[in-house]
């Protein structure tokens, strides 16, 4: 039996080493060498150039704004869902899975149609007597695209941490004299913190590193750090610089993952 279990663990261990560990080591290798193969810090230092710093700064700014917006939008929704007596799985599937069957690129592109000068949203705004919205091809549109695409990644972990809270714990707080607001601040929110942290990472990382959303909604004028790296690989074939920049980017990812690990006691990921 034990031997069989060892045999079972063979294929996926080989797989994780071959296609997860070695590829990452290769990025490290490329990041610290030049084309001749000798050691250099040049690729890492490349992040310091004004245009790259600008792209990194903008990406950080936009992804932070998107993460905060996602948190503000998703938390109340997660609370509503966790309070529905019936099984909320159907709603979760509606929010999370079904939209994925409409291609991600097309879904994002559709915002262009909606946001256009004479698009649906502006027609509706005009009808309501509100000023028109001209955010297409601006950073605002990119933020919208990020929030739209990554909102479910914020919602799901928060929802999962909320439904794990024993109802009696909430009742106990009320029993001891806390009103709704105090119960939320002192009990519900602190207990859902692992989900919130996990949600923040799940939104922050893809927002920080995206090149597609900025490509589609930024009108190819706005470069985020993701776009810079993508161009180094797909257009310039400058793998060493691209790897160097990726390594710097991964520093940010590692920091947020480390924070997440601290809160995730089981080491299983609170996401699902």
């Amino acid at each position, binding site marked *: 039996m034990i031997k069989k279990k060892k045999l079972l*663990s063979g294929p*996926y261990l080989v797989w994780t080493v071959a296609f997860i560990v070695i590829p990452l080591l290769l*990025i490290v290798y490329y990041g610290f060498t030049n084309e001749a193969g000798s050691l250099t810090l040049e690729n890492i230092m490349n992040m310091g150039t004004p245009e790259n710093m600008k792209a990194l700064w903008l990406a950080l700014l936009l992804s932070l704004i998107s993460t905060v917006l996602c948190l503000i939008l998703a938390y109340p929704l997660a609370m509503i869902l966790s309070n529905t007596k019936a099984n909320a799985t159907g709603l979760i599937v509606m929010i999370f899975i079904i939209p*994925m069957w409409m291609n991600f690129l097309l879904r994002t*592109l*559709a915002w262009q149609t909606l946001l256009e000068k004479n698009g649906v949203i502006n027609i509706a705004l005009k009808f309501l007597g509100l000023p028109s919205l001209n955010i297409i091809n601006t950073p605002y549109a990119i933020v919208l695209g990020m929030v739209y695409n990554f*909102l479910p990644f914020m919602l799901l972990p928060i929802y999962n941490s909320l439904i794990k809270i024993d109802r009696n714990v909430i009742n106990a707080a009320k029993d001891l004299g806390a009103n709704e607001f105090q119960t939320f601040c002192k009990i519900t929110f602190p207990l859902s913190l692992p989900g919130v942290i996990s949600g923040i990472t799940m939104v922050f990382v893809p927002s920080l590193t995206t090149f597609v959303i900025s490509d589609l909604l930024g009108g190819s004028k706005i470069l985020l750090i993701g776009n810079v790296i993508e161009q180094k690989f797909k257009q310039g074939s400058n793998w060493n610089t691209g790897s160097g920049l*990726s390594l710097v980017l*991964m520093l940010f990812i590692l920091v947020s993952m480390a924070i997440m690990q601290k809160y995730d006691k089981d080491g299983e990921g609170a996401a*699902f």
Partner: protein
Amino acid sequence: MKKACSRIYMFLIFVLLYAPILTLIVLSFNASKTRAKWGGWSVKWYISLFENSAIMDALYNTLIIAVLSATIATLLGLTAALSLNQMRKRRRTLIMGIINIPMLNAEIVTGISLMLVFIALGNFMTNFGYTIQFGFWTVLIGHITFNLPYVVLSIMPKLKQINFSTYEAALDLGASHALAFRKVILPDIMPGVLSGFLLAFTLSLDDFVITHFVKGPGFETLSTKIYTEVRKGIKPEMYALSTLLFISVLVLLLIVNVKPKEKKKQAV
């Protein structure tokens, strides 16, 4: 009052999530060739779709990659989950950490790293007279890799709930290991296995970034095809195809969700 507020809030979120989808469905019936102009209702794109061999090829590639990568990832993930469940906590945390990397890491980094490993492998193989073509196989491997953590995460919770003494009871009653696994363990974790498979299938279908880096010229999935069309203008057939895919999944899910209710009624 509170209830009404939460209803409205939920409705608004659904509008946010489904407005683009509705837009695409409407666009698929637009007689005009550009999305900027409304040319009246038409179903012509649904007809010309089936004559567009480039799109049909991309659809075929997308589906075959999704089916194969989800299947292989599920099998691999199942073995991973089973052996992880037997491990000591420390080792398990380490290996889970590695498996989770493609989920937590930036897609672009995963894509690049896979691209680099395929190039390196190609360079190594040329020494022996083999070449590695970027295309079907590299995309498949890429998709399996990023699907793996989702499958493992779907199965692990179910596996944790299992009381392994039922497995031992089956052995005690004379079942072989294989039979005991099939009859006792598998039925309990099946919901997790299935949802893992479906999630993997959906993610593979929707993926662009990883495919973008590992596909090589000449091999297109729907996502990469759409991406190259963005500058030139998306062919309306794409809207038609996406609408078809979306509607068919919606119908499928409705059927699956309606059936168990009928069964319950019969039982009563």
